[in-house]
């Protein structure tokens, strides 16, 4: 079984548009949306959820005010500024900052603190007209999205095994941190979608460092290449120096946004259009 992750360094370069189109073009595959923080693939593929599973990430410290003597030891212990004394209230745990490490639980002399599990999000397995899709939604203000990414990939792997699929198409997380690393671990190829802007070039450099660091083969595709042709050349040259292949140049076309508004993958919305053809070429190169 092959795994392909589509990433972009930062969001907004058209990564999900491309994954949505690959969902149409690829055969015998399972889809995985690993952008669990801000998943968008479902807006194109309209999954019908068949399994929904609670995701428990990090725990949270809970304070029993009937036992607390306001001694402040916990606040001194906490390295994450999650326990603060505010003007309005006594020592309280800020759930948005608590990383569930348990240090305060250990130091509280009154045993007023306990670590409790919390539901940090949901993982889904769904049916789409393009095949099975694993996805998730992290609750807001949560950490450990890397673990949720891993859970999504595991769901996708199981589905692919059950259905005898030979490909998993992964919409990767943005950035270079935990979620993106979890989206890339052990995949066969990373397709990096970039755009011809100075920021795009800068982010591409960083994400290529990440894939190299983890020994993952990468190819690049330049989206909206014609909005700044000089920069596209610069990116191509940069990739050549790094020994990375550029597998496609996709032109800018408002049809991409129109397809998004229609809630459809662009290759389906605009059959035979220039963008669709370019995406098909990219798919032809990497499949």
């Amino acid at each position, binding site marked *: 079984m092959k795994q392909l992750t589509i990433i972009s360094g*930062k969001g907004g370069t058209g990564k999900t548009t491309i994954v949505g189109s690959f969902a149409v073009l690829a055969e015998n595959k399972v889809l995985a949306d690993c952008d669990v923080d801000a998943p968008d693939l479902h807006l194109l593929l309209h999954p019908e959820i068949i399994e929904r599973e609670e995701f428990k990430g990090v725990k949270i410290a809970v304070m029993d005010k009937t036992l607390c003597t306001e001694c402040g030891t916990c606040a001194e212990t906490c390295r994450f500024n999650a326990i603060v004394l505010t003007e309005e209230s006594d020592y309280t745990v800020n759930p948005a900052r608590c990383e569930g490490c348990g240090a305060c639980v250990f130091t509280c002399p009154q045993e007023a603190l306990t670590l409790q599990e919390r539901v940090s999000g949901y993982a889904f397995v769904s049916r789409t007209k393009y095949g099975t899709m694993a996805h998730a939604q992290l609750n807001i203000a949560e950490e450990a999205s890397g673990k949720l990414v891993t859970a999504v990939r595991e769901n996708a792997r199981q589905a692919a095994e059950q259905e005898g699929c030979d490909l998993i198409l992964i919409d990767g997380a943005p950035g270079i941190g935990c979620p993106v690393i979890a989206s890339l671990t052990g995949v066969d190829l990373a397709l990096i979608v970039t755009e011809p802007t100075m920021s795009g070039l800068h982010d591409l450099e960083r994400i290529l460092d990440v894939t190299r660091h983890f020994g993952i083969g990468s190819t690049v595709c330049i989206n909206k290449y014609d909005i700044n042709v000089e920069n596209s050349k610069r990116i191509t040259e940069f990739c050549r120096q790094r020994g990375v292949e550029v597998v496609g140049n996709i032109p800018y076309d408002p049809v991409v946004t129109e397809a998004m508004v229609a809630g459809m993958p662009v290759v389906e919305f605009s059959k035979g259009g220039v963008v669709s053809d370019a995406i098909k070429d990219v798919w032809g190169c990497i499949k």
Partner: protein
Amino acid sequence: MIISVASGKGGTGKTTVAVNLALALSNTPVQLLDCDVEEPNAHIFLNPAIEETKPAQTLVPKVNYELCDYCGKCAPACEYNALVVVPQKEVMVFPELCHGCGLCSLVCPQDAISEEPREIGVIKKGTSGDGTIDLVYGLLNIGEVMATPLIDQVKAELNPAKTVIIDVPPGTACPVIAAVQGSDYCILVTEPTPFGLYDLKLAVEVLRVLKIPFGIVVNKAGIGDRKVYEYCENVDIPILLEIPHDKRIARCYSEGVPFANKMPEWKERFVKMMSQIEEYVYEQ
């Protein structure tokens, strides 16, 4: 006054808004904190002269084997599975998993665990090419997973005597909270598309939880549909500014040039937006 600029997802123009706003306010002392430590971009637009680069560190445990008796108490205490005790041999530390919480050193009955700093990235400080903006940004090392401690360290550089603008990382998870917390106001940047709307709604939820007042900047106005506007009207969120989908603006962005420098009429619009925000914050 601390104003953060955020968006549910990257690539919506958050950095563009942060940078152009900072430049427009050149009459007042401005500090820009780029907390998007995974992919910092503000410096690309500001060409800062970097005056200081310092390592950003977290703490990881270090075991003193003269004291350790392999009792095994530290490993199960760690909530992140960053420790494994191999009896009579070693206490293995997995630094990428360690959150630096300090619990294991508290737990160890032999006082065998001390902590040592580990570099996770760097913090750079400088002044923009034209000398008007103090810029601080963090750069997470490749292969590092934890952005939050680095964001906290960027924010530790905050200068309350200035107007502070924070470029917030994309998303809705912990790093966003770390960056946005403590702001007087948050500008949410979105695109008028279904993706933009979905991610905007998530970002709105975050700000509601944090009780930070906010308004919207619609970037690339004119593309997509009207749903973002309808949503804002229905739930009563002010639209502070619309930046049209304009070839010249897109061109500036692609070249790494702040568009308000090329199109000065925009400076006034950003200044106006700022006074609108100030008025709101002082009323509260």
